[in-house]
């Protein structure tokens, strides 16, 4: 495949070309480069390698902490996890690559904020399996398009995940069942990802797939910021409803959503 037509970050393209080493800081995350290749990425939106490894019980939290204590200063935590027998090479690579592409997706999300590069700055996790900056850009673009191809309503990405009943005979996969079971109507996809120890993009994608199947509610518009919600007027309390026609309301809602 050829180069990305519209780069998600012109600065990343330039840094890759000049084989730069350092940290690319953006609004939603940071990419770490060594000789122009991406060796690590992190984003507040994406669970880190520690969350992915410890949530499922693969690694006890103390094992992780010890690795960071002993190898963090040499920027070789990943290597230490393997050399000390806590993890196998393949596991480390699978987990770390997944986390890097996940964080990079959010770090490279469109933003109006500044992009800065700090030369020479490295990450304490160390290098596991460097990826070309072009591959990271291309995958990020592919992921954006994939989300919209599945269900073009970005409002489900940030809103609390509210499950809806399955239609008769409708089946749900094992992984999606686990996601639905954890969705309590308040947790957002990012919170569910952390809870389940899964990459955040995977969770977004599953939520969009579930929304497309009608198994998760699609908010009509992005959730308003909590601060901007006006307080309910205290002077006019809603009259108590004695006999709401739930079935009618559900049919109305379904009809409205069908016209989204």
């Amino acid at each position, binding site marked *: *495949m050829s180069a990305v037509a519209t780069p998600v970050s012109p600065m990343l393209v330039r840094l890759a070309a000049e084989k730069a080493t350092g940290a690319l800081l953006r609004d939603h995350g940071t990419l770490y480069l060594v000789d122009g290749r991406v060796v690590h990425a992190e984003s507040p939106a994406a669970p880190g390698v520690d969350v*992915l*490894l410890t*949530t*499922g*019980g*693969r*690694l006890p939290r103390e094992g992780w902490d010890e690795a960071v204590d002993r190898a963090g200063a040499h920027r070789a935590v990943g290597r230490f996890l393997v050399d000390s027998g806590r993890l*196998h*090479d*393949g*596991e*480390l*690579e*699978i*987990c770390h*690559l*997944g986390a890097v*592409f996940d964080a990079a997706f959010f770090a490279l999300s469109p933003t109006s904020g500044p992009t800065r590069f700090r030369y020479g700055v490295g990450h304490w996790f160390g290098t596991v*399996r460097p990826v070309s900056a072009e591959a990271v850009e*291309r*995958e990020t673009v*592919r*992921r954006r398009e*994939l989300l919209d191809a599945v269900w073009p309503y970005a409002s489900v990405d940030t809103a609390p995940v509210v499950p809806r009943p399955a239609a008769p005979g409708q*089946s*749900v*996969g*094992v*992984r*999606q069942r686990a996601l639905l079971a954890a969705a309590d109507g308040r947790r957002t996809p990012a919170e569910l990802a952390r809870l*389940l*120890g*899964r*990459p955040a*993009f*995977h969770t977004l*994608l*599953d939520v969009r797939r579930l929304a497309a199947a009608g198994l998760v509610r699609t908010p009509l518009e992005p959730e308003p910021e909590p601060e901007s919600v006006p307080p309910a007027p205290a002077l006019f309390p809603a009259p108590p409803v004695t006999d709401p026609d739930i079935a009618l309301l559900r049919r109305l809602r379904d009809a409205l959503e069908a016209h989204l």
Partner: protein
Amino acid sequence: MPGIDECLLEAMALPGARGASLVDWTSGLALGTAGDSPTGDHETTAAETAELARAAAEFDSFTTTGETSGAIPGDSPPVEDLIVTTRAGFHVLRFVQTSFDSSVFLHLWLDRDSGNLALARLRLRDLAERLVLG
């Protein structure tokens, strides 16, 4: 053993091997590739094979034992591998079981004439285990 690249190189040493990759079936990302791809582009092949793997891994028809009514409990993924036979080749998709939450499989593309499907299937099972168990 070795990491992803060594694992894919071992797969490529099998008779008739034309291409190998390690793919994440939730996202369609190729974590590693070796050799050729049937479409000429490993990323396209990864996205396509991921859809196939996801269907197999999630449909109840494949994830229930037939003896009990529910899905198999425990961590081991019920689907072990998928085999697609075409006029010109074989495709073996072997699910990799990790002890953290993940969704990856090995994909091996074999030439129909020189490939040995039975051997490839056994070796891929072995490779999938050694990739994560060392």
